[in-house]
């Protein structure tokens, strides 16, 4: 077994980027994720030749990513909620131009300048668009520091497989907390240029240009149809989720990221009291595991969705369930993390006492 290390989520993610053979990172400081840029500026360049640049704004960093991603290199940026809001125009361009890149959102409480404490309030801006136009990000929601590491390589792999931006949707708690992790081996940086990349036009091929401008309506429609076909394929192939003690469960807690772990504890507490509770955790929040949730809805009495927001993913849970069973919601906002006890309390309030 490989050596275990105790690492902070943000630093583990940064280390994973170096180990994944990332070619370039462009970012701007914002709490609670500044450790990523700080960690990378230490010695990433010396170790692998990875370019690390502090941009003058999130708008600049996403456009540096846009340019650099167009060269076919493995590039990434990270930020936190208000910074991600600033990036949305660029993300829309990148999605339309079909450029692979990795984006990391270490979410903090909003709206506005909000708080620096953890939140899941950016679910909507991650999975429902965020920027303008019809596009999708592949979105991974880690729930442990280990997944903060694992999702970096997975994210780059998916980005290049689908030529699509991938976002790691995590939160301030996962970014700041320390856990044991197993790091992967160092991967070499890629030396091959994809055939679509803007790396300089040799005589042997036509020029490559990267654009999201298709001014003729029929062309723009064709681009959209192409993107939609790609998204349908992603929805078929890339759904990832985890089930915890769902087989005999009467009630299932649905949560992503950090909250799914708190729900596991709540489920244990419930089982100690004789209430059969399971946990369903989407790992990809886009594509979303609608079918699995729908199947599960046929086996249980109800779902309780728990989030650190006012109720965002719960809309997708309700879409999946389509009215078959009750879907209750518990949300904490403003940077407050729900406790296992309050989840249990809500669960008992909604589902115990009648027939369970």
């Amino acid at each position: 077994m490989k050596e275990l290390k105790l690492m902070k989520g943000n630093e583990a993610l940064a280390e994973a980027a170096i180990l994944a053979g990332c070619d370039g990172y462009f970012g701007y400081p914002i709490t609670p994720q500044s450790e990523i840029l700080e960690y990378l500026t230490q010695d990433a360049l010396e170790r692998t030749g990875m370019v690390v640049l502090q941009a003058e704004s999130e708008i600049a960093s996403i456009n540096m990513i846009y340019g650099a991603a167009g060269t076919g290199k493995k590039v990434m940026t990270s930020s936190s909620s208000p910074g991600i809001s600033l990036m949305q125009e660029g993300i829309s361009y990148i999605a339309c131009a079909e450029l692979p890149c990795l984006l990391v959102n270490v979410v903090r409480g909003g709206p506005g300048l909000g708080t620096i404490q953890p939140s899941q309030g950016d679910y909507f801006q991650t999975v429902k668009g965020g920027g303008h136009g019809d596009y999708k990000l592949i979105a991974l929601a880690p729930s442990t520091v280990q997944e903060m590491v694992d999702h970096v390589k997975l994210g780059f792999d998916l980005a290049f497989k689908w030529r699509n931006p991938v976002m790691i949707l995590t939160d301030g708690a996962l970014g700041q907390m320390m856990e044991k992790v197993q790091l992967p081996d160092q991967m070499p940086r890629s030396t091959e240029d994809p055939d679509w990349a803007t790396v300089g036009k040799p005589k042997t091929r036509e020029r490559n240009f990267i654009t999201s401008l298709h001014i003729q309506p029929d062309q723009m429609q064709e681009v959209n149809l192409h993107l939609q076909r790609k998204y349908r394929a992603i929805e078929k192939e890339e759904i990832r989720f985890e089930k915890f003690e769902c087989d005999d469960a009467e009630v299932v807690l649905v949560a992503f990221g950090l909250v799914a772990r708190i729900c596991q504890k709540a489920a244990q507490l419930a089982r100690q009291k004789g209430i059969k509770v399971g946990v369903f955790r989407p790992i990809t929040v886009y594509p979303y595991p609608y079918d699995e949730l729908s199947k599960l809805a046929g086996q249980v009495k109800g779902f309780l969705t728990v989030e650190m927001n006012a109720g965002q993913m719960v809309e997708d849970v309700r879409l999946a369930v389509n009215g078959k069973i009750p879907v209750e919601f518990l949300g904490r906002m403003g940077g407050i993390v729900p406790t296992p006890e309050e989840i249990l309390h809500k669960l008992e309030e909604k589902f115990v006492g009648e027939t369970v």
Partner: protein
Amino acid sequence: MNEKTMTEEQHFSEVIAEESICTNDNLVFERTETLIDTPMHYCPGCGHGVAHRLIAEVIDELGIQDKTIGVAPVGCSVFMYNYMNIDMTEAPHGRASACATGIKRVMPDKYVFSYQGDGDLAAIGTGETIHTCNRGENILIVFINNGIYGMTGGQMAPTTLPGMKSTTTPHGRDVSIMGNPLKITELIAQLPGVYYCTRTAVNTPVNVRKAKKAIMNGFKYQELKKGLSFVEIVTNCPSNWKMTPVDSNKWMEENMLPYYPLGDLKVPKAESLPATDKGE
């Protein structure tokens, strides 16, 4: 089609068929390889076409078509990639220099340039422009200044002259309300990261030659990894100035050039540049 045109067409086809006319000995002009043989969408008399061509000629003369990546802006030259036979990226409005930074940083041995209008570079993209210049990114920025928003139909630009009419300053730019035109080239010339900074025009054959020399310098300094080169080209906009091409050039000389005087703002001291095969 009248008889005269028919005759001319027939005449030309005969000339082209006569291959012996053009030989290596008497060849004085070739089509610019890096400029794609297609009609441009620019209005008659617009300076963009000339500016594109100069960049294409310089790329050809330096033999760097396979090592050059351009970044197009949002504005009239948004379609620049339709005319340049090189790899290009079309950047969001104002962000061309950030985009070029990303490209250059991951491929430091390639030649990278951005091509931006006044609204793109000096209004919405001012932050990116100043910081790209301040970092001394080893790229060339070509700045087209015609004092107006062309593509959106003639609104006030950061470089619109005092008193100049536009669709959003219908009574003329009132500097007490809108401030004075931004001399961004003078501003960025102060930055240590900027190695070479000059203002040119493409309104006369002499100025066209000077503009080409400036673009050539920019690419050569990039080869020498000297930092940022900034070439402003003051141009006309006949359509949105609502003038004929000839009148617009005259107006430019009488009004734009006194405010935006041509010439070098920053030149390296005693710099020796590698010679090229031709076109100096």
